[in-house]
């Protein structure tokens, strides 16, 4: 079983739809959870970052973490064509000595928002 599982899609939605992107993980030591957005031919861009269970909202984006189920989600409200990109979940353990920065990534979900 891979440490982080993410449905690669592709996912295609109409403009204005609510998008739900999900990752599951097996390592209960993961404490920090991130979502990155990667446009074609660009580097990953940090979108959301959280370290606690529950919801974190930033504009049209909501990150949700359920540590008991080892499940994280990213919701995009009122999706726009400019949201079309690959979304990567990433997570890391809380550890001393600097190794807490090691990120484990999902494979990414390709999202297309159609006008």
């Amino acid at each position, binding site marked *: 079983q891979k440490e982080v599982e993410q449905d690669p899609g592709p996912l295609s939605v109409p403009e204005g739809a609510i998008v739900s992107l999900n990752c599951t993980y097996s390592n209960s030591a993961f404490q920090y959870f991130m979502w990155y957005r990667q446009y074609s031919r*660009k580097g990953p861009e940090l979108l959301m970052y959280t370290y606690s269970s529950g919801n974190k909202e930033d504009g049209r984006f909501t990150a949700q973490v359920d540590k008991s189920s080892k499940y994280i989600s990213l919701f995009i409200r009122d999706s726009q064509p400019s949201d079309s990109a690959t979304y990567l979940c990433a997570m890391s353990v809380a550890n001393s000595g600097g190794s*807490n920065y*090691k*990120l484990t990534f*999902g494979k990414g979900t390709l999202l297309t928002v159609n006008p």
Partner: protein
Amino acid sequence: SAVISQKPSRDICQRGTSLTIQCQVDSQVTMMFWYRQQPGQSLTLIATANQGSEATYESGFVIDKFPISRPNLTFSTLTVSNMSPEDSSIYLCSVAVQETQYFGPGTRLLVL
């Protein structure tokens, strides 16, 4: 956050040659990382580069193949040595800021 640039942005190389990729950050950072992103795959960490010490390589990656330099707190290089077509990939550098990482734009490498 941090602003990161990489050079070259892309290259096409012949097998058996080597390519050095540069990563420049706009602020001083302790930890820098090098990743590989192959088509349809997630990002895979190659090594962690701290200034003033040897890079730490992940399982499956060795210094002879991917030598790394970290001469100061704003710069690092990754060399892909003795390249083969299997090295064709996107190579990304990142920097640690608090508990997360910020990425450069990547270097797209094609080995013929």
